[in-house]
Structure formats: C-alpha cells, structure tokens
C-alpha cells in the first residue's frame, strides 16, 4: 500500500485543519468536493451495507413462504450454528466435503497455475528469439476480453465427455471408453476442468508480469553476466526480485478471488455442488443461503466469516511480503 502514495508531497495533517490558512482550507474543500461522488457511494454501497451485514448476523431474519418473519436479536446463535455447520468445515475423506475445504482444495490446484502459467508465458513473450512478439502478446491476451459465460461454454464444448474434441482425440489414441475423463461431471476431473475453463483469464497477469520483466534495467543483466551467472541464477537473483511486486499483486488478487469463486460452478454445474458436493464452493454456499433459502441472517454470518478470512489471509500475505517482495526504491 505504501508504495502507492510514495513520492507525493505529504499533505498537512488533520490536526492543523482549524488553523489552516484560507488557501489550504479551500484546497481541502475543493478536494473533498471532487472526492464526494466516491465518498457518498462508498457510504451507501459499501460501508453501510457492511455494517448492516454485521447487524444481520446477530439477528434472525428469514423469509418463509414469501413472508418475512419478524426479525429478532439472537446474539451469537448464527455464529454457533456456523461453528457446527458440517457443510462448511467437513474435511473427512469419503464424505461430502465442506464448502471451505472445497475452496481450499481447488485453490491448491488453481493458484499455482494462476501464477506460474502467466509467468512462464511472459518469459516466453520476452524471449529474444521469438519472432512476432507483439502479435503473440496480443493473441495470448485476447481471450481475456471474452465474456466468461461464453468462454465457459467454449471450453465446456471442447471438454464435453461425449462430443468434445479432447475425448475424441483420447479415444483415437486408444483410451478405452470407460477410462475417458468425465470432465465437469467427474469428481476426479472437475477441478482441472475449472482450471482449464479459467485459463483464458491469465491475459492480464501475463501482461503485467511482462511489463515488470521488461522494466528490469539492462545493466543488472550485464552485471549478472560479468559475475558469470547462468540463466537460472540470473532469473532467480535478478528477474524474480525485480518482478516480485507484480507477482505479489497478482497472488493477492488470486487468493482474494479464490475465496469468492462461485460463478463457474454456478453456470457449469447449475450451482448444485455436483458431482458429489465437490463444487459447493464457500461463496456459492453463502449465496444459496441468501437467494435460495432466503436466510439473510445466516448468509450474513457466512459473509462476515468470508470477510474475516480474506482479511486474515491478506494480512498474513502482506506480512510475508518483506521476506520476498523487493521494492527497488526502498532499498537504494
């Protein structure tokens, strides 16, 4: 966060507001005036709803048969229910996995792909032997702008167990029919399927990483060469530290996105959690509590747990940053 505001002249502190000279007071008034669209929007669409969600989580608000039950204060009841909710926590093998466990299990596959694939592609795009760099760069980025519903159906078509090209190719290579992957309907293949369906989303990460790689000063590479560093040593000691802020940024966004993942299972497996509850992601479970079960208070409780988990993960991530993320201007 610090590096976002660094390099700007420090504004005066809030304490001196009253004894500000007229010019500074006008600056404050004008500045706040220009920020007001965002401040008002932030209050109405973010801060007040967040507080309301917190209040809902201490109440019992449900709609049964289209009628709102009279809301009442129930203290920590929803949180106690949450602690005992098997549908969230269950990690036992050979049973329907809990929504949080589903999310984490998927993340163990999706996160490495989401970081390393764009990084490898960016390195390939930066390869000095590659002809037509700008063509390849924009073609690998291009699917990023395809609406996700369409890209899910495109990959879903290619991966269709009966009519898709991938299984046709596997069959022509001699894989017997019973051994063909069932992809989105197959409990062992559904996570790889989702990862493949999300592969077109890497364009943005690839371009930011590429911009990072290209902004590494060439004299650093020259210095590494003089020191006799090999290709891997150069990457590890020069390129990686220099692009670590970009990787850190993409990793943070990916983890935050992971905990909110639900649109793909909603569209591909109709939000049912099929096959075998493997796609009942945490955020999907949350939305079902609200939109299907019309249980606002339990949905709000799940939302606050989600918020706290994301906050905690972000804090942990930011606290590890000083061990591996390198900001050039901070270490002159």
């Amino acid at each position, binding site marked *: 966060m610090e590096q976002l505001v660094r390099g700007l002249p420090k504004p005066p502190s809030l304490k001196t507001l009253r004894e500000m000279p007229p010019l500074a007071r006008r600056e404050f008034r*004008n500045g706040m005036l220009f920020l007001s669209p965002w401040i008002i929007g932030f209050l109405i669409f*973010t801060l007040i709803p967040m507080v309301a969600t917190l209040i809902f989580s201490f109440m019992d608000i449900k709609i049964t048969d289209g009628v709102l039950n009279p809301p009442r204060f129930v203290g920590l009841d929803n949180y106690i229910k949450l602690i005992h909710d098997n549908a969230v926590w269950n990690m036992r093998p050979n049973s329907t996995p809990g929504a949080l466990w589903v999310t984490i299990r998927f993340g163990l596959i999706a996160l490495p792909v989401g970081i390393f694939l764009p990084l490898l592609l960016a390195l390939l795009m930066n390869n000095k032997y590659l002809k037509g760099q700008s063509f390849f760069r924009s073609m690998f980025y*291009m699917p990023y702008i*395809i609406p996700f519903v369409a890209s899910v*159906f495109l990959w879903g*078509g290619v991966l269709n167990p009966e009519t898709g090209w991938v299984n046709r190719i596997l069959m022509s290579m001699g894989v017997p029919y019973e051994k063909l992957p069932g992809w989105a309907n197959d409990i062992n293949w559904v996570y790889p399927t989702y990862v493949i369906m999300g592969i077109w989303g890497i364009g943005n990460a690839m*371009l930011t990483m590429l911009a990072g790689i290209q902004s590494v000063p060439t004299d650093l590479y020259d210095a590494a060469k003089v020191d006799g560093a090999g290709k891997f040593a150069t990457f590890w000691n020069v390129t990686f530290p220099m692009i670590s802020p970009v990787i850190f940024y993409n990793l943070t966004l990916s983890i935050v996105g992971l905990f909110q993942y639900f649109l793909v299972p909603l569209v591909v497996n109709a939000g049912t959690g099929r096959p075998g509850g493997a796609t009942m992601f945490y955020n999907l479970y949350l939305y079902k509590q609200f939109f299907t079960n019309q249980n606002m208070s339990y949905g709000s409780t799940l939302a606050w747990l989600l918020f706290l988990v994301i906050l905690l993960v*972000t804090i942990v991530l930011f606290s590890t940053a000083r061990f591996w993320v390198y900001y050039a201007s901070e270490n002159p």
Partner: protein
Amino acid sequence: MDVMNATLRRIKIKKNLNAAFVTAFTAALLAIYLMPFVYMILTSLKTPTQITIMGSPIYPADIPTFTFNGENTNTYTFQVNRGGTLTELVIDMSDYAGKRLDLYTVPLPDGTTRNLALVAGFQRESIFIDPENPAADPILWTGGYYKSLSRPWIFSPTWSNYARVWRDIDYPRMLWNTFFYAFTTTIGVLVSCIIVAFGFSRFRFPGRDFLFIVLISTIFLPGAVTVIPTFTFFTQIGWVGTWLPLIVPSFFANAYDTFLLRQYFMTLPHELDEAAMMDGASPLRILTSVIIPQSYPAIVAVTVFHVVWAWNDYFGPLIYLSTRMDLQPVSVALARFNGIYGQQPQYIQAGALMTLIIPLILFFAAQRFFVQGIVITGVEK
C-alpha cells in the same frame, strides 16, 4: 578471415534455428490455446448428427448417400467371405429401389479409386454399386472391412443454427439491453471516476492518502459482505426488476478505473494547470479544459475496459433481472439458453459466438488501448 566468417555464419545459423524453434513452439502453444474458437465456429455450423457420428470430419460435413431408383431389378448370387466362411448371398436389386445407400471411397483392383454405394457390407468383403451407372451389375469388393474405407464427405454448413438462436433468445433485444447497460454505465464510470481521480491527483489536503488507501482496499473487499443488505434495500424501494440497481452505482466511482485515471493524471505536468489557475480558472474548468484534453489515451482505456466488463457482467444482471427476461443482457440469456439446450452443442456454440463477437471486435479495433491501460496501472505495482 575465412575462419572468422565461418564462425559468424555458424552463429547466425544457430540464431535462426533458435528463432525458428522458439517461434514454432509458441505458435503451437497458441494453436492449442485458441482451439476452442475453432471448435465453436465448426460446431455452430453442424447438425446434431454431424456432431455425434463417430469418425466424421471436424468440419460440418454431410454424410454422403446415393438414392437408388431401381434402375436394375435383376437378382444376383455372390460367394461372399463373411468373416472366414464362404457363404452364398442372394441380392435382389429390386429390394433396394428407393433406398438411400451410403457412399464410400473404394480403391479398386485396377488401381483407380471410385465413390461407390454400399449395398451389403461385411467384415472381409462387401458389395457395392456404381452410382454413375446404377443399371450395371453390382461389384464384389474384396479389399477388407468396409468401415475402414474413407467417405467422400461434403462440406455442408448449417447456417440456420444462428437463426434459431437469434429467434429463441430474442437476440436483437438482448444485444440492445447489453449495449444500453454498457453505454449508460460507461457514462457513469467516466464522469464519476474522472472527477474523483482529479480530486486524488491534484489536491493536497489532510486525510487524502488515507481515503486513497480505503479506495484501493475496496478492490479486495468481497462482494458478498455487502450484497445481502443492498439487495434487500433495492427490493424494498422497488428497484429489483429494473436497470436502476445496475446503473446508479456506476455513477459513484469504482476503485479500478479511478486508480487507472489517477495514475495517468499524476504523470501530467503541473505547469499547465498552474498557469490556468493563475488566470483564475476554477478547478472544474482546469479539469475540463486542461486535464481531460491531455488524457484521451487513459479515458479510452477506461472506456474499453469498462465496456468489456459490462459485456462480461453476469451476476448483477442475474440477481436484479431474474424476473425480467426481456431486460437481460446476452450473457444471462446465454446461460439461461444453456439450461434449455445444454444437450445441443450446435446451438450453445452459435449463442456463445453471438455473445463474444462484440467484445472481440472491440478488442481488435482498440488493441493499443488495452495494452496501454494495463501498462498505466502496472507501472506502480
């Protein structure tokens, strides 16, 4: 001298080899990466039979047949090898009158290859007639299993799949809805984010940096933590089932676009706005006549990103317009369509093409601005 030239030439050859290898590898990777587009186009032009039949080509192809009109009514007796044993087979050609016979590309003993119509097929030998001369005697072909023969496929696209989807999801209306959504929210985003970004980049006042950090943190805030009261509130004031819950919030600035514009505004020199200020121009005047005219690349970048975002948006329209199918944008309509025609890939792929075509055109028309926009935001990270 010669030695040096030879060495130089060797280095050059090595370089060209490396370039050829790396470029070919990347091209192969790209082909796999973009393969679903090819699948989409080819599948959207097929009939259900063309999709399911085994061994059919990947392009939409008609299964070639020949209709025998009974030009020959004789009866023939053949000695046929039916999987090891010779059996007598009686073929009465009049039985086949009016029947559609499958065509195969048959290599004949005389070295020629002809398209023949199958009358009776077995594991080792089969009986064909010549469609060019149907009155002639049937031919006993002894070249092996007829199913291993290739077939003379005819390229035959089914364009009516598009017409069907166009009608079924009321495509013109969905397209208009999407366009309307993208257009109105782009106005909202541009007006509000330019104003707020100007506030963050051109004024110095206490609390500004704190507010900026709050703005950036909203990128990491899960939508779930605000959606329940917001949805309930919009239900109470009767906005659910209208465009308002989707359009109105766009007029209150969002973190991504404000950030992009602020980064760009900060790169603009202060001299011009200071000069304008000396001339007594108001801040709003400075924004409209000094900052905005210098910021077209960033403004276009925000516009194209936002239009793509609006075209992609699914969840907002889904929850607020679920009762009003006539107001839904294409992505919601496509997902609903999939619920009905999930087993008919040709319709789904045609619908997907109709959903992605506009953003795709926009991308190729405004490529430069997409890359630029990412670079603007990418620099500081």
